[in-house]
């Protein structure tokens, strides 16, 4: 799962009922790409076997159209980037300070937290891309937090060097501010958003909440519908749907 996508994936294809659907329609369940009909069955079977995403991309070159391939490559490149460890918009020192706060929003307990999910890389990239207009908010917000830190803990040098208790006290003094809400939102987005943004590394956040992040599921989906599948919820004697 090094690139934020499962190493094994299956390609779903179905046979329709109309004449237009008599040919198999292959749909890659990860990229959602529709692959041209008429593909030999052994290729389909091969596709359903274990492949890394990269292997699959190369296999698919022969059959997908160029725009499809390019868009998939772009997707893969974006996913690969999520492993980067250099900063695009933050300096190392302020990144460490921001990370210390994020790590209190979603702490590392017995289970991984913001730090392990690479939240700081998510925030760094967000400030270089979709949240570019929030750079000043971060600068001002962190300056204000540092000011609060000096007031509360005059002996301290940095937020990251404070004890957990001190960091919590510092956040409590600022939890009603707009900046904290922004940082909290970014931390959660980085923990539970798509790994291609640089956070949620190894799908840590998704695994913590039990979100599988696959492209297709089959019923039963959860405990109660599995339990009910034997019941007669809108079903006739042969299992057919009825009023």
């Amino acid at each position, binding site marked *: 799962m090094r690139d934020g996508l499962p190493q094994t994936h299956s390609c*779903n294809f*179905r*046979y*329709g*009922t*109309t004449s*237009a*659907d008599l040919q198999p329609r292959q*749909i890659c*369940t990860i*990229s*959602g*790409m*529709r692959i041209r009909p008429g593909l030999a069955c052994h290729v389909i079977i091969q596709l359903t076997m274990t492949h890394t995403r990269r292997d699959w991309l190369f296999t698919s070159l022969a059959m997908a159209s160029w*725009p*499809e391939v390019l*868009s998939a490559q772009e*997707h893969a490149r974006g996913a690969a980037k999520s492993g980067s460890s250099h900063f695009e918009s933050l300096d190392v020192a302020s990144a460490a300070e921001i990370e210390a706060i994020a790590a*209190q*929003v*979603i*702490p590392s307990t017995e*289970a991984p937290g913001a730090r392990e999910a690479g939240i700081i890389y998510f925030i760094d990239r967000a400030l270089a891309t979709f949240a570019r207009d929030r750079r000043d908010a971060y600068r001002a917000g962190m300056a204000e937090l540092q000011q609060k830190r000096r007031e509360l803990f005059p002996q301290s040098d940095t937020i990251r060097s404070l004890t957990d208790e001190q960091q*919590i006290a510092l*956040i409590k003094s600022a*939890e009603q501010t707009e900046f904290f809400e922004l940082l*909290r*939102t970014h931390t*959660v*987005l980085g*923990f*539970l*958003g*798509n790994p*291609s943004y640089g956070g949620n590394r190894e799908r840590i*956040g*998704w695994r*913590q*909440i*039990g*979100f*599988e*992040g696959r*492209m*297709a*599921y*089959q*019923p039963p*989906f*959860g*405990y*109660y*519908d599995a*339990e*009910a599948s034997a019941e007669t*919820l*809108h079903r006739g004697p042969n299992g057919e*749907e*009825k*009023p």
Partner: protein
Amino acid sequence: MSAKFRPSDAVDFLVIGAGAAGGVVAKELSAAGFQVVVLEQGPYLRENDYTHDEIKYTFQPGLTNDPKIQPVMYRKSETEVARPVKAIEYGRQVGGGSVHFTANYWRFHESDFHERSLFGQVNGADLEDWPISYADLEPYYTKAEYDLGISGLAGANPFEGPRSKPYPLPPMPVKSSGVLFERAAKKLGLHPFPAPVAILSRPYQGRAACVNCGFCESFGCEMRAKSSTLVSVIPVAEQTGRCEVRPNSYVRKIETDTSGRATGAVYFDGSRKEVFQRAKAVFVCANGVETPRLLLLSKSARFPNGLANTSDLVGKYLMWDNGCDVQGLFEHPLNEYKGIQVTRLIHDYYAADPTRGFYGGGGIDARFDFYPAGFALHGLPPDAPRWGSEFKRIFETYFNRTMTLLSHTTALAQEKSSITLDPDSKDAWGLPAVRITYDYHPDDMATMKLIIQKQLEILDAAGATKTWVQPWGVADNMPCRHLMGTCRMGNDPKKSVVNAHSRTHDVPNLFLVDGSNFVTSARQQPTATIQALAYRAADFAIEAAKRNELR
């Protein structure tokens, strides 16, 4: 093969907006032999362009209007100065809102068309009967269900009006919320039924069935299983060889001649160059906000108050997307993120009941309403900590064990609730930004309060170990997505903007069809009715064109 017309060609019909209504109209008109140009302000995206990216589609305007280029100004009342708030949201691409909607597909009830007669007037509101009945629209609901591909179970909703045909496709597989909801509702003596949805439960008309990926609400379907106009009727329109869809085309004015007839529209193309497309007749299907805005922008010496606005009602009677999220925690995992959003609902509290002492009613569905990050930020109990180890423990353990019930409740038409042009703010093309003036009618609040109690009763009966109510009754808390009422339909030209066939009273070759036609809000979920109205308006326009009324 898509057609290609020159702007100087006076095509038979110009359709503004390629959404739920515009896609239908384009297909009907072109299939009937007419030349059609469709102007869509957004891009032409395909299923390959969509992804399961929560950040892109729910935290950024991935498929919706972007306030950075199209500011939305909001104020609660006329006495306030409007401020920029994304108070309204609509789909902005070919296919419009039918691309990213949750795909709920409710027919209105028979009573919805006659509530003024059934209930009487409401203080401070303008409740009116529709000029049409359910029976007038029924053939078009059926046509929409078959043309687009709707899954559901006919006869399962005992409150629904008579239908001429069953749904073309069986219901989608029930999920855990549907099972819990159905058990609880039955225990309470209610009538739960499988959700009718614009999602394919089986392959249909060359499209594959849904794979239960769970990303319907706010997302474009990567499988083409959601029956948007993008994947259903628009390709049919293009295949006639008589329809050209022009994306990235932002209309600024509908032009008229000295006799007061529409002659086409001026739009900015993708490179912001002005183009005038000539046409013999014009359909505006730009949604309940952009349609009235375009009429107000289309002022001329002959129409100083805005086009088709002698009634002075263009933009008035905006009705809001009312409803509340009420949630419950359960012992076992529901895994609500798997499968389509909604599989069961009730209409037991739908009818307005005078014994309640106020007008209103609602439907309640069980749904997956919060994707992972959205759940941690907006789906937790209001008393849960917002950061720290307890915050983390709660979002981790609650995500798969929470059931959400969303209600869909009435919004009364009030003259003071409106779409106007903002006097100061401009969009990226230099046009006046839209200004929303909206506040709830007291009966709307009373209805939501009542339905929340019903939602809590159902969650309790389902065995929830904890229940909570998300903040409600704050209009600018989240954007209104059902844009209804702003070019009201009626027989009296003084009290309505369009007639019973969606033709404007003032301009004989100008049609408006989308949520703006709505006289009442029903109980939200407007798409089926928007599309039935579109089929009906297209039918009428085809006949009018054949009679040579539209030149």
